[in-house]
């Protein structure tokens, strides 16, 4: 779907997306990394379990909600990757019980 113009970014960080390691470029948003990873969707809806993916990338549509380092309901387009970050798709409503 998407590609980097520069296929060899200067600095990379390793993150995991649903448990699988992924090399993201430093300074990239989580949403960008997830779109590049090709996992297809970022969350499923609480109402009908439909898959959704980032839509506006400017923080107003709330479609890219993901579980980031254990925290649910994070907007992937407003979060930036850091080494070792754990990113998971959010299934249904975010679980805030922890």
């Amino acid at each position: 779907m998407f590609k980097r113009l520069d296929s060899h970014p200067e600095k990379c960080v390793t993150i995991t997306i649903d448990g699988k390691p992924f090399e993201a470029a430093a300074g990239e948003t989580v949403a960008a990394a997830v779109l590049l990873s090709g996992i297809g969707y970022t969350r499923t809806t609480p109402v009908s379990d439909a898959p959704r993916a980032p839509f506006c990338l400017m923080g107003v549509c709330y479609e890219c909600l993901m579980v980031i380092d254990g925290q649910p309901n994070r907007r992937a387009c407003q979060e930036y990757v850091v080494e070792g970050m754990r990113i998971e798709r959010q299934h249904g409503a975010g679980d805030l019980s922890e």
Partner: protein
Amino acid sequence: MSAAELKSHYSLVIIGAGPAGLCAAVAAAEHGLDVALLDDQRAPGGQIYRAIESIPTERARLLGSEYQRGDKMVSAMRNADVEYYPDTQVWSLSREREIGLLCGRTAAMISADQVILAGGAIERPLPFPGWTLPGVMNAGAGQILFKSQGIVPADGVVLAGSGPLLLLLAWQYMHAGVQIEALLDFTPMRNHLRAMPYLPRALLAHHYLLNGLKYKMDLKRAGISTVQNVSNLRAKGEKSLESVSYIHSGQQQTIETDLLLTHFGIIPHIQLAQAAGCRHNWDKRQQCWRPQVDDWGNSSIDGILIVGDGVGIGGARTAEHAGRLTALQAVHKLGRIARHERDRLARDDRKWMRDEQHIRPFLEAFFHIPAKLLGAPADDTVVCRCEEVTAGAIRKAISVGHDDSNQVKFLTRCGMGPCQGRQCAESVAHIVATATGKSLPQVGLYRARPPASPLTLEQLARLFPDEKE
């Protein structure tokens, strides 16, 4: 700066670090005001000058000279005596100018003598069948990926909609060597006639028209096919986008693609102004609700000023001038300069702003979105993306006697999800107006209440650390 450095009170708080907010902050600081500039993004520039501080030169060149203008504005703010708080979301603004915010993950309440809202615009959400599928995104989202991360469509992308941004993005993609499968132009042919009366005035700002024509000619020369006068857009796919169909000259056409970027103009992002209780009016020409302001940006609430695209779409250069004018007004209201001094200092910006506005009536008429597209989506089209409320469900609520936006919201839950109606408020109002024959002002918008963006109860509770159990 970080949450720990926040003071509890400022003479001026500016919300939004795009062109309007940046220019307002610099002007206010020059007059010695104690200024905090709060912004949701991690870096200054707003959407228009996004990533301007970190972008590699080559990519900045691809984006064009208008983008590169942002550099000066951002460095002026960095050099000014302004407390700049990035990654800061404002979830509440009251009439008394108390501001609830999340700086990083930390909630705080601060207050201000004057507040300038410079929250900018959002892309006009326009529901069509399949628009919730992964692989369908706003054109602005495509441009954000390009600007801030140098990420572009990998295979053939389909661009669809109507508005200057669509053309600009196609042109920027073309320069970056992106394969554009098709550019589907939904601007109706009759808009050419509709815009004609405004052409003479638009010629006074002919550089905008020439730019547009140049983009079109460059695209044509590059062999990118633009299909004009298109209707009935539909995105299809099982789990994600597989194809896009549309009607052209009475024929249904289908293009296979995994990426569709759409754009139907931009509208002011009014969530916070609404939650504060500022008066808003429907603007027929811009087809959006706008906060009511006077020539100096004063809203209907004393001490809250609103400026830039958040008050009506005028573009980045208008926002610069208006930002400075509004800052002068705040400086004047705080007793730092007399009225005649304010007027004298505002003279140039006021003139330049008038010059900038010559092009607007033409653009508004040319890119006028047809009422049918706004107010008559098919019954099975999802309108509220968060709560998955369809146009059919909305019309059903209308048919049993619910005839304004808020009643439809109570009955169907549309507008009650995490985006809090940002993506469906306008559409629901259009659908209700179309179905009932009422005017948009009669139908109204959802009532917005704080928090204007979600925060956890834990974050809220930590605002009051002394109150145990």
